[in-house]
Each structure stands twice: as structure tokens, then as C-alpha cells.
């Protein structure tokens, strides 16, 4: 029976001959079949993954060495990451039969280091949603409780790791789409700082917010994967050109004492589940007992973050999604249209789902002449203020912590009729995307309703190393309980 704990252990097992890549892939294919009701995958590259596994096993036999840092690591991709020759639909009808003609930079880098891509994960359509109920191809179920949502938008990717359908997965995080499902599924979800990982080949939702993120169960695996996929890319000029530190090595900063801030208004927020508030306050005490400094900071802008986020992201989305017009690729209206405008209307009306249309309309509205300054310009100002505020905080602290989500995973259908309530679930996560800082959700807690939930940590821009080291510490402290 195959079992997986960390990449490092897996690689040791490979070199001891205790297992091989084909065994690993076979195991995961079986797992995916057994758990097909979770609807985490839109497509499984069964034959291809087995072939690649066999190739990698042969490589090891011949060379007595691993082909790369991710040799034989079985990875799943959110259905917004382009993989040449494979379908990528953004869980949307409009791209249902679209095949990517190039590789995303992250895909190139994963493959270069020996990873095996096993399939593409279901998600909210165009990464818009917090519950995975917005997929054109059905909801994804939370493996901890099938009546509950896995979170979104990278729900399928989170569940794939949660239910051992792969070793790790990549999602995308525009306002919490990696951290929130990680929280709901009881795994680690990391969103590096904006521009740390190339977005080339990531289907855009909101370009100045989008960032590819990593789901895994072990923080060591997050560090290794980040090392592989992050860094300068000639195809994405928004990627930081600062050389990467050694992330796995950063985890060895044992014994460091941190100065940690939390937003008083966040823990006192009326929308926050009482039990979560209590557990986190207790955990803060625990951190203090361990010698860390944890202090409240005032943050009176909390109520502005969600509106600012939705104005700015929908504005960008309304433009980003214009290319899906039925002309060059993707769903196109058949011959019964009157003129070009009618063709666009029919193609886009039938191709996009309700939430995507809602956001395109909202974004178009906030950019319209006459409303531009009242919404878009104002939201940009909020973003600027938040950025300055963040800079200020990181002058005195190493990190900011908060709940990842105000409540644990809710039931399927529970919030889908109320978009505003759904939007408010993002209150703690959107901050990191508005300011571009790295953030992570670490699985620390269990709710009395049986569902897991996590703690969010954020560090200064470009300081993923501290975030990883702190996460390791946060998990270690919890394990002492």
C-alpha cells in the first residue's frame, strides 16, 4: 500500500527501492476513481501519467539519480493553468472544448523538475467564487463532510490534496481562492506575494491580484515547490526579478522568536464565528507562552476591503474576459444571429455562467464614464492606503495573523442565493491580494461541528521565507498541544 507524507520521504523511498513512480501514480488513479463523487477532477491524464511515471522510474534506474527536485511528484492543476495539448476550460462552457496551445511557465518548471501532472481540477468558473458552486461542471464536495463546500475558487485542487488524490496541487488566489479552500479542507494553502510566481499561462481573473498558489499537507513540500515554480520569467514582466532565497533552507530557522500583529477589528468582527474567535484568541496566548510577541494593531479599514476588492477585481475581470468573444476560439453562437453584436451577445450569454456575468457587469459598471471616480478611483485609493498601512505594520512586526475565513465550511447551497454574504466570506483573505503580500492558511484547528479550520499568516512583500518558517513554527506549536 502506497502512502505519502512528504516529498523528501517519498524520494527516500524511491531511492531505497521501497516504491516507484508507477506505484504512486497507480495509487492516485485508484484514489481518484474511488472518490469520483467529490468531483475534484475535470479530467485525469491516466495513461499519460503512467507513461511518464514509467519513464521517470527508468530514468532513476539508469542514472541512479532523481531527475529533479520534484521527481515523480504527482501534481494536479487547477483548470485555469495552461498545459500544452490539454484542455483548459476555467470550468466554463465558453472554453469547454478549448485545448491550450502552450505551456504555462509553472507547468514548464514543474515538468523540468520531474513532476507528473495527473489531471486538471474543477474550480469556480474563471476562479470566481468562494464555494466551488460556480463551476459549469458541478460542485466539488468537501471530503470531510460531503454536504459541505470545499471552498473556492480552487476547491477541486484543495480536495485533491485533502483526499489524497495527488501529492500536491496548484491553485490560483485572487482574493483567497487558495487559502480559503485550504482552510475549509484542513490543508496548507499558500499564496506567495504578487509577482513571485509567473502568471504566464494562468487564465486571468484580475491581473493585479491573481497569483498562483500551492496546496500541500507538509510545509516542507510547499517550500520545495515554491523554489521550483517561483522567480523571474521573460514572459511575465510583473514577476519580481529579485533572486530567490533558499526556501527549504529557510525552514531551518528553529527557535526564532517572532513579532506578530493581529487586527483587533478582525477578531472582534461581528461576522466572525464565535468559536473561531475564541480558539484563535487562545492560540495567541499559546504563542505568547512560547515567547513570541503578539500584539493587536488598530485596523479601522476592515469594512472597506471587500468592497474595494470587488470593485477592482471585477473591473479588471470585465476587461480580461473580453477576449472570450467566440471569434478566435471557444464557444461561438451558431448561425442564427442577426449581426456581430447579436453574435457576441449570444456567444457570451450562453458561454458564461451567472456569477461570471454578474462580475463582468459589475466591473463594466464601475469603469463606466460617470461612475468611474465614485467607484474605481476610490477603490484604488483604498488599495493605496492599505498598502501604506501594511508597510507601516511591517516596520514593527514580522507577520500579521488572522482567521483565514470567518466561518468553517458551510453547506452546499447555504449561501449561493446571497452573493453579498458570499463576498463577505473573503473579508480576511482579500487584504493580502489588495496589498500583494504573501499569505498562507495553516490547518491548526477543528470546529465543534467537525470541520477543520486554519489560521492565516501574512508577511512583508518579498518575504515568503519568513512566512514559511513562521508556518512551520505555528504548526509545531499546535502539535505540542
Amino acid at each position, binding site marked *: 500500500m502506497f502512502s505519502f507524507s512528504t516529498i523528501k520521504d517519498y524520494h527516500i523511498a524511491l531511492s531505497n527501492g521501497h516504491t516507484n513512480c508507477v506505484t504512486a501514480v497507480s495509487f492516485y488513479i485508484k484514489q481518484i476513481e474511488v472518490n469520483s463523487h467529490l468531483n475534484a477532477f475535470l479530467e485525469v491524464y491516466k495513461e499519460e501519467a503512467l507513461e511518464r511515471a514509467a519513464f521517470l522510474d527508468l530514468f532513476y534506474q539508469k542514472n541512479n539519480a532523481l531527475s529533479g527536485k520534484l521527481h515523480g511528484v504527482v501534481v494536479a492543476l487547477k483548470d*485555469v*493553468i*495552461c498545459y500544452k495539448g490539454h484542455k*483548459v476550460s*476555467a470550468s466554463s462552457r465558453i*472554453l469547454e472544448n*478549448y485545448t*491550450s*496551445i*502552450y505551456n*504555462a511557465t509553472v507547468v514548464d518548471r514543474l515538468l523540468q523538475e520531474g513532476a507528473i501532472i495527473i489531471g486538471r481540477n474543477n474550480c469556480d468558473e474563471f476562479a470566481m467564487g468562494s464555494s466551488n458552486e460556480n463551476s459549469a461542471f458541478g460542485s466539488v464536495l468537501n471530503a470531510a463532510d460531503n454536504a459541505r463546500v470545499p471552498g473556492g475558487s480552487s476547491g477541486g485542487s484543495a480536495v485533491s490534496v485533502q483526499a489524497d488524490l495527488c501529492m500536491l496541487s496548484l491553485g490560483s488566489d485572487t482574493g483567497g481562492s487558495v487559502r480559503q479552500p485550504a482552510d475549509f479542507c484542513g490543508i496548507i494553502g499558500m499564496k506567495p506575494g504578487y509577482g513571485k510566481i509567473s*502568471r*504566464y*499561462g*494562468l*487564465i*486571468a481573473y*484580475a*491581473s*493585479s491580484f491573481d497569483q498562483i498558489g500551492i496546496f500541500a499537507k507538509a510545509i516542507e513540500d510547499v517550500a520545495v515547490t515554491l523554489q521550483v515554480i517561483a522567480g523571474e520569467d*521573460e*514572459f*511575465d*514582466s*510583473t514577476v519580481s526579478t529579485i533572486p530567490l532565497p533558499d526556501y527549504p533552507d529557510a525552514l531551518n530557522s528553529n527557535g526564532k522568536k517572532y513579532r506578530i500583529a493581529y487586527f483587533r477589528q478582525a477578531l472582534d468582527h461581528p461576522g466572525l464565528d464565535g468559536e473561531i474567535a475564541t480558539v484563535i484568541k487562545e492560540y495567541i496566548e499559546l504563542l505568547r507562552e512560547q515567547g513570541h510577541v503578539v500584539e493587536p494593531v488598530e485596523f479601522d479599514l476592515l469594512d472597506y476591503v471587500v468592497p474595494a476588492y470587488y470593485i477592482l477585481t471585477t*473591473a*479588471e475581470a*470585465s*476587461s480580461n*474576459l*473580453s*477576449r*472570450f*468573444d467566440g*471569434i*478566435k*476560439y471557444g464557444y461561438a453562437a451558431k448561425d442564427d444571429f442577426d449581426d*456581430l453584436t447579436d453574435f*457576441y451577445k449570444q456567444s457570451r450569454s450562453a458561454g458564461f455562467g451567472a456569477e461570471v456575468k454578474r462580475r463582468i457587469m459589475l466591473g*463594466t459598471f464601475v*469603469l*463606466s*464614464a460617470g461612475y*468611474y471616480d465614485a467607484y*474605481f478611483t476610490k477603490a484604488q485609493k483604498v488599495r493605496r492606503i492599505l498598502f501604506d498601512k501594511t508597510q507601516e505594520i511591517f516596520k514593527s512586526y514580522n507577520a500579521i495573523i488572522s482567521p483565514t475565513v470567518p466561518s468553517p465550511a458551510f453547506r452546499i447551497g447555504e449561501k449561493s442565493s446571497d452573493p453579498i454574504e458570499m463576498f463577505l466570506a473573503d473579508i480576511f483573505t482579500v487584504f493580502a491580494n489588495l496589498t500583494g503580500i504573501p499569505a498562507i492558511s495553516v490547518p491548526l484547528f477543528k470546529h465543534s461541528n467537525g470541520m477543520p479550520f486554519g489560521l492565516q499568516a501574512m508577511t512583508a512583500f518579498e518575504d515568503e521565507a519568513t512566512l514559511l518558517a513562521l508556518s512551520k513554527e505555528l504548526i509545531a506549536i499546535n502539535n505540542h498541544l
Partner: protein
Amino acid sequence: MSILSNKYEAVIGLEVHAQLATKSKLFCGDSIAFGAEPNTHVSPITLGHPGTLPKTNKKAVEYAIMMGIACHCEIEKDNFFARKNYFYPDLPKGYQVSQHTTPICKGGHIAIKTDGVARSVQLNRIHLEEDAGKSIHDIDDDYTCVDYNRAGTPLIEIVTEPDLFSAEEAYQYLTEVRRLVRWIGVCDGNMEEGSLRCDANVSVRLKGETKLGTKVEVKNLNSIRNVKTAIEHEIDRMTHMLENGETIIQQTRSFDAGSNTTFAIRDKEEANDYRYFAEPDLPPFHLQQSFIDSIKQALPALPAALMGKYEHEFGLSEYDAAQLCQEKEIAEYYAAVTAHTNHYKAAANWINGPVKHYLNEHKIHISSFVLKPAQIADLLLLVEEGKVNFSVASVKLLHAMIAEHHKTALQLATALNLLQVSDANELETWVSTALERMPDKVKEYRKGKKGLIGLFVGEVKKLSKGKADPKVVTSLLEEKLNGAD
């Protein structure tokens, strides 16, 4: 019309799009070569495939700055691109990446001359943007076809203030823009292939009125001549409308080159809201002063500066200087010739005369002319030194040199027996023979008809087959005719 043109005045603004002569597109590595098979220069980025991102072509930024410097613009150091959102099949992403809020070049001016009067046309801006693909409506009965090869080609848009006041000024302005872009090498300036495109905003108002009249935008102008004709037509049309008490409505009109008229294609921009916002896929870019300075330094001497030099330092006439500076390669050729000789005026005459004549006749560009500037210098020196006469040199010898360009002018002149004879004995014989043939004319000359000297010189030339040095011949003739006989 002349009465009306005293009563009304036209105000014109031009928007010129120039395709930059870079190797690749503004935001990806696809080639921008003209004339390729449709849809062959189309990477996933050009086609706007999901997940693709733009990457700015530095050369295009450099070219825009070059044009800005050539037009005396202020170069903006903090730049960003914006998205102009609209749907059209030839716009792959559903938005055009352009510079909306911060054009890279602000203000500036371009000097023109109409009817001998020089003035500066004020520019509003020069900004960078990407071109759209090309919709082709006439190759299929049922469908419009789209060629995306052009999509993403870097453009600069050169926008004037409403600071042109006649069709002729517009003509001169465009001619100057074309010369400038070619001169500094940022665009091939070819209007027929669409690398240079012009839209004209025309309005007419009563003279003395300070408010602008309602403007009409004229499109589809694919030659400088057409721009002039279209503007003339518009001024005429609008003037008559005003005179008849009609109201001009804001329109976009298209020029019909067949009838030399314009027709309305749409009334007043249908309140298009382009929802501009900063392109989030491209970080803002800051230009260092040192970078701008280095571009300035690398810029070739501009036509105005060269003309000044040729007039004031070389003593050429304004006309000759202007003729030499119509095209940079000609001006450079001239400069190269003058590096070998200080017969500046003669060099100008040679290039503006026989050289250009030869090139035009054989449809050869100066850049592929076989004769090196030093060879032209040698040639003109033979004439200046009286060894070969100009008319012989400019036809026979020039062609001989082109045919056998590895030989020197002197070698060929000798071989072809074209060297002028100034040896007195040989000349003496021809002079005597000429005078003997025309005794009557000699008498007339001696009676005072001194103008006949030309006739005698001509006769000697004929006898010598052009080899006789006319200066020496003249003095010999005079000596003989005026002397005692």
C-alpha cells in the same frame, strides 16, 4: 469660392499613425514583416489566447522617444500603458493596449513651409499603442475574414493641435512627417501599405471667430495627395453648408478616391465608452534621463540642421540645400562627397543633377548606387580642373564609370578620349579651321557682333568632338579675331 475663403477659415487637426520599423511586435516576439501569408505571424500572445501576457518591446519605446526628440517634444519619464476596451473581431483581446493618460511624448512641433512661408505646427502628443488585426470584407461573399498578422504591431500616434489652416498645410505637414520618420528610421513611411495612416479632423468657422466649428473626421486616406484632396473637398462642402445656413453635424466620413469626395460612415461617435484603466499586466516603466540622452545622441542630424549647415557653411542656395535634404540617404551621400572635395556647390549640382537623374531614370535608390561618394568627387574634380567638360562628364563619363565602376574617372576619361585638349598647337588648328569655314561671320564679328563668339566656340567644340577646353578656345579665338589680320 475666393469670396467665401475670405469669409471663412478652416481649422484642421491630423492624427497620424506610424507603424514602427521594429523587428517584432510591441508586446511579443512575432515578426511585423508586411506581406506575409495571413495569420502566420500569430503566436498565442498575438491571438490573445487565455493566460498570455504582454512584454514590452524596448526598441519600440526607443523609436517613440526618437520621434519625440525629432519633434521637440517633452519626453515623459513615468509611463504606463492603459487598456482601451471595445469589442471588434480584429481586436484579439477585446482591448487595445495604448497610452491614454500619459503619452510618452508631450507637446512638440514640426516645421513646415507653404508658399515660401515657414511656420511650426504644434503637436499635442505622440503616444505608443498596438495595432489591431485587419478585417477583410471583400474576399468572401458571406464572411469577413480577419488577418491577425498586423495585430500587436507597434504604432506611434502623432496628434497635432488644431493648428493647420489649409489643405496645403496639411499636405506639407504630412510630407514632413513622412520625411522625418524615414529620416530617423522609425517607420518606412509607406502610406499605400498602411505603415503611415492619417485621419483628418476638419472644421470651418467664420474668420475672426475663436470657437472651433463642428468637426468632421475623415478616414481612409491612403496617400498624402488624398489627404489634401479630401480636406479641400470637406472645406468646400462645409463652407457651402454654412453659407446656405445649414448645420454641420459631427460625423466620421470616408474618402472615396474614385470621385474625390467624402461620404458619411457614422454620425457623432456613438458615445463609445472605452473604460480606460492602467494595463495591470505591464508594470509602469520609468525612463532614465541618461537613456533619453543616449537616444538623443544616437539620432542622425535632422533635415533642418543639415539644411542650415549646407546653406550657411557650404554656401548653397536654400533650394539646393532643400533638394539634398529631401531624403536622408541623399543628404548623407552629399556629405560623403564633400568629405573628399570642398567644391560644395559643384557637388550639390552633381547630386541634384546627373546623379538623381540617373537614379530616377533607372529607379535605383541611392543606397544601391554603385558609385562611391569618392568616385563622384573624383569625377567632379576632373570637371573643376578643366580636364573634362561638364556635359561630357555628366553623361558619357558618368555612365562609363557606372558600367566599369572599379576604374577611376581619369582612367576612363583617358581611355574614352574624353580629356579636354588645352594644348595650344592642336587647338590652333581647330580654331583656324573653324574661322576659315565662316568668313562671313568673322566679318560680322569684327564689325561688332561680339555675341558670335559662342558660335565659333561651338564650331571648335564640334571639330574637337568636345575635347577642346572651351575657356582656352575662347581666349584663342578672341586673340585671333581681335588681333590684326
